[in-house]
């Protein structure tokens, strides 16, 4: 079986992937917008255009915003597998698989709490999400 894709990393997003290697989910946030986070990373705010932005560490908590259960082939994946959109506590959405959870509608309840984890692909750590432990609350 071929390997899962690794991202092509660009200068503007290097910090994100370096953070992931250290087990941190890093986001950009805009200072003039009151520290509002945005995604994916870029060195300016997509809301106001300011370059006065910082890097923050996300809490790693989110909820299951939407998903599909993919039955189509993808390198390194064994269908069916879940492709989800996670809504982070910081108010931004990102794509993830859902680990440690069956790829079945019964197990994948919209808005269920999730937490970040990291999947190693070669020397790259890929942010992933799984059901939050003790997360029914």
């Amino acid at each position, binding site marked *: 079986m071929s390997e*899962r*894709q*690794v*991202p*092509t*990393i*660009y200068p503007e*997003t290097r910090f994100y992937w370096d953070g992931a290697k250290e087990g941190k989910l890093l986001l950009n946030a805009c200072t003039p917008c009151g520290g509002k986070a945005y*995604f*994916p990373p870029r060195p300016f705010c997509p809301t106001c255009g300011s370059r006065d932005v910082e890097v923050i560490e996300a809490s790693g908590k989110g909820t299951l*915003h*939407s*998903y*599909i*259960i*993919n*039955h*189509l082939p*993808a390198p390194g*994946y064994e269908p*069916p*597998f879940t*492709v989800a*959109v996670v809504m982070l506590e910081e108010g931004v*959405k*990102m*794509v*993830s*698989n859902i680990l440690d959870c069956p790829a079945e*509608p019964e197990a994948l309840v*919209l808005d269920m709490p999730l937490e970040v984890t990291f999947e190693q692909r070669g020397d790259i750590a*890929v942010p992933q999400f799984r059901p939050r432990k003790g997360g029914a609350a």
Partner: protein
Amino acid sequence: MSRATIAIVGAAETTRLGKVPELSQTGLHADAALNAMADCGLTPADIDGIATGGHDVAEIAQYLGITPSWYDGTSVGGCSFITLVRHAAAAIQQGLCTTVLVTHGESGRSNNRNHRPIFPSMQQQEFESIYGPLVPPSRFTLPVLRKMKDDGLTEEQLAMVAVVQREWAAFHPRATMRDPITVDDVLTSKMIAYPFRLLMCCLVSDGGGALILTSAERAKDFPTRPVYLRGSGGESAEGPMISQMESFSSSRAFRLSGKAAFESADIGHSDVDHLMIYDAFAHLPVYGLEDLGFVGRGEGGAFIAEGNTRPGGKLPLNTNGGGLSYMHSGMYGMYALQEAVRQMRGISPAQVEGAKLSVVHGVGGMFSAAATVVMTTEERW
């Protein structure tokens, strides 16, 4: 009283649709273009403007022997051709050219081509593709469960989109899929990307189409019945990362494009006799009906399931059978335009009696872009 300034005078699809292994993608462009020129009695020497999407416009000009004074290669996915109709209209009005050929050709099934039609997106690849959604069925469908929960859209309603469009396709000898289907057929077809099953997904076809536009004043010199543009249409874009849509239940690009088209045409929804909404997947007509304002938010699925858009219904929608049943080369927008032109000429195999005004609305990429145009049989309104 307003008067049309631009007309579509030539329109044709490729000689064959569906499986066309004997032609290259460039050849499909040419076949469609030659058919459209023949439709209105022109030759390449008469064309001074050329536009296409997903393909190098200069290559098509050279292949056909056209010397343009204006070109446009806007490539935002399948709605590019709808966008190009309004760009061409603006160019003619500005005096940049007089006679524009808009071509589409796509070897989506036979793959007789050397490139894909949509530019890869840097951040889509870096932050979405790595998780495995590599093709339209696993990308375009990502927002839909959210909409189902928030707006009450059901799997049965999505299935009815496919059922109703198959009813329309049955009228068309050139449609790929013409046999009737039931909701049960759709809901037991192969699972592709839950909740989407095979019959909720578009076909993969070879084909092409072309349009020829000129000023409304010149339109009377042509042998064809002119189809006039009303207003300047609309377009907008939200971008190729579907996970970053503002809302998963409504497309901002759809709303803005539709609003601009309706306002510039000075029409209301009750003025629309015929509607085409690009349907790469079964949820697109639902989003389209809602985002263009034909129904309220969350009412699109029920509106279709209740039969309002089927043959004999009050709002005939996707009367060629759409991308789900007619054909879908990858960039379907041209075929939506072609069916609207047939309806306005009064020659569609699924002709809506007395139809005078048609709205064509398309998506580009996966909710990445949108375009809308309004066509009419009337020179004045």
